[in-house]
């Protein structure tokens, strides 16, 4: 019973990642009618936003002491993190919490990337067949992957969890069980809550704002909205950017759980498409529900 509960929790956090990616995919498909195989690459780019931020924030000033030689004959380097020089203790906190803080740069960056992708490439393929859309977006995914590989190398670049949030929460105790029966890492819990929050935010945006209303109308009947004099193209471009942001932030927060590497996007893409299809192409609640369901199924399938 406890094993099952533990796997259920496991499934929820992984399901959160799938749900976020599938949400973006369904948004893009529902609004633009484009099958976007580059969405996994957007998730991967989000991960590398966190990597880049951490790299920038941990830039060190390296001074070499030519009088001291390391055992392999090169001069010993003395490294001082620049951020700590400027900000002292606050700098240390910045470095420690680099993953959540990188959300601040990931959001505008992913928005820009999404809009650039849409205006630059996807726009030309609206009227084409799905097969051609798949080909071009898959090709884009490979190009993005190789760019990341040439910039960051082929090895995974692990990102640390903030020090206070390492370790596991004793969930069993919250539900009245004996201690140490049901534990779950803190960061995974945070990720689950974060993904629920983002999903809620997207739904709120779609259902409670005028912009969202126009988007939903456009998903239902694009031509009619155009005939009413509303510039639906611009709104859909922004929706694409929003989908990219959702995938990107899912990636940023996932980095402490899974060391980002250049082919992460492809690993998540396949299952995300399964989620979208199971949830119903174009159905947002369906995508979210199917995402969580797939995560739970994947976990439970390994219970022996």
């Amino acid at each position, binding site marked *: 019973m*406890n*094993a099952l509960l*533990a*796997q259920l929790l*496991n*499934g929820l*956090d*992984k399901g959160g990642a799938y749900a976020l990616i599938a949400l973006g995919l369904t948004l893009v498909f529902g609004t633009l009618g484009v099958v976007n195989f580059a969405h996994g690459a957007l998730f991967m780019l989000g991960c590398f936003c966190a990597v880049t931020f951490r790299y920038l924030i941990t830039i060190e000033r390296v001074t070499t002491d030519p009088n001291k030689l*390391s*055992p*392999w*004959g*090169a001069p010993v*380097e003395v490294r001082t993190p620049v951020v700590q020089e400027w900000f002292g203790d606050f700098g240390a906190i910045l470095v420690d919490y680099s993953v959540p803080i990188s959300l601040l740069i990931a959001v505008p960056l992913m928005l820009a990337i999404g809009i650039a992708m849409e205006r630059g490439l996807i726009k030309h393929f609206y009227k084409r067949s799905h097969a051609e859309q798949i080909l071009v977006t898959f090709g884009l995914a490979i190009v993005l992957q190789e760019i990341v*590989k040439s910039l960051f*190398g*082929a*090895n*995974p670049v*692990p990102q*640390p*969890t903030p020090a206070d949030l*390492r*370790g*596991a929460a004793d969930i069993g105790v919250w539900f009245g069980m004996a201690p*140490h*029966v049901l*534990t779950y*890492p803190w*960061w*995974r819990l945070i990720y689950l809550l974060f993904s629920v929050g983002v999903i809620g935010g997207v739904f709120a945006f779609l259902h409670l704002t005028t912009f969202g209303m126009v988007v939903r109308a456009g998903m239902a009947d694009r031509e009619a909205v155009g005939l009413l004099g509303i510039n639906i193209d611009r709104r859909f471009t922004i929706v694409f950017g929003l989908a990219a942001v959702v995938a990107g932030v899912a990636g940023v927060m996932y980095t*402490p*759980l*899974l*060391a980002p*590497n250049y082919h*992460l996007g492809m*690993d998540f893409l396949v299952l995300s498409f399964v989620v979208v299809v199971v949830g119903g192409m174009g159905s947002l609640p369906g995508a979210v529900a199917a995402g969580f369901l797939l995560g739970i199924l*994947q*976990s439970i*399938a*390994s*219970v*022996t």
Partner: protein
Amino acid sequence: MTKFRVDRRTVLKGTGAGIVALGAPHFFIRNAWAQQFCNDPTKGKIVFGFNVPQTGTYAEEGLEQLTGYKLAVQHINGEGDGGMLNTFKPKSLKGNGLLGRKVEFVTGDTQTNTDAARDGARRMIERDKAIMVTGSVTSGEAIAQQALCQERGVIYMSGLTHSNDTTGKDKRRYGFRHFFNAYQSGVAIAPFLAEAYGKDRRAYHLTADYTWGWTQEESIKAATEALGWQTVATVRTPLGLGDYSQYLTPVLNSGADVLILNHYGHDMVNSLPQAVQFGIRERQANGKNFEIVVPMFSELMAVGAGDAVKGIIGTQNWNWQLDDEASKAFTQSYGKAYGAPPSQSAHTGYVQAILYADAVERAGTFYPPEVIKALEGFEFDGMGNGPTLYRDSDHQCFKEVLVVRGNEKPSSRFDVLNVIGKTARNEVTYDPTIFGGELGPYEPNQC
């Protein structure tokens, strides 16, 4: 005048006589033809083929191995400071190339993929006329290239490969391995595990689901059970899995108190930190602290795993922090050339290239059967692992094995692992028949 009658009998007699007459010289030059072999460099350049993963999962280890190979070629050609050629004995190489001629090389990318490895090796033999092919980071690549090279009559010196099968059931006459194997890791690590964690432990294995994972699991299980440990469960995990949470959750309440991760490369870079995140090392089970063991390490994996590797026990083929003359000479030489200390991947590549070249020099010929015989049973020292034997029955090197532990306070990314002990060569030597397999014939196939 007798009429010359051409009848059947005459024709037959004449043909028989003709065949014998034409064929007679062949009996005298038969041995001369037999010396013909693939890519004989007497008629062309001496080319070594370095086929390593330059892309894919193990790209970083492959590129490091390539740096070791390139340094070896420099030293063979007499350039640089000689590195381990100054400590290697008994040495036949004279530092003026190979049999007096310069060695060149070509490189290939196996993409960490078995089929690409085989294709690359084939291309090097057919197009680039390589006399020797070397390089691997996964056992799949090594076994595939070894089999191909046996078919083509070209010697293959494997790179980094740890599965028992490479010199076990898949051994080949034309294949040679310097790197240690899973069985040796098991034997080496067992006494250190007993000392650190006691003899009354219950182990849970998570194993990468391919040949290397299976053989390592088998070897570690046998070695730990010989100590008195019990094996609670052995679970196979798909290769390249990113998220191990679904496999780690059952470990916590399984009744085990040691988690053994039979994972390498990216698998371990993910599974170990995730296991630590799940709080496994803070837990208690059966009245003892829950421990994690990673039987085979590489420096790059340890860097990738970050803080999670601190205090974890494992084994390595070689480590730059060893204080014997040969290791120091190699570390200095490599450090001057590349600005960083060498990894075990670079070391095994360097050693294999040197050993092949030295065997050719010793045999006085590139003819593979003679080179193979020069390597079989070769005892040497001064290559960083103490006295080493290239055993003739399975073409596996026998030398001491290092037991390492994650450094609690690393000063840089180069000393994340500390050597805590060495297991002597005679303890890790085993009967070659336990793994089966046949070496095959000496006679070279034509390519």
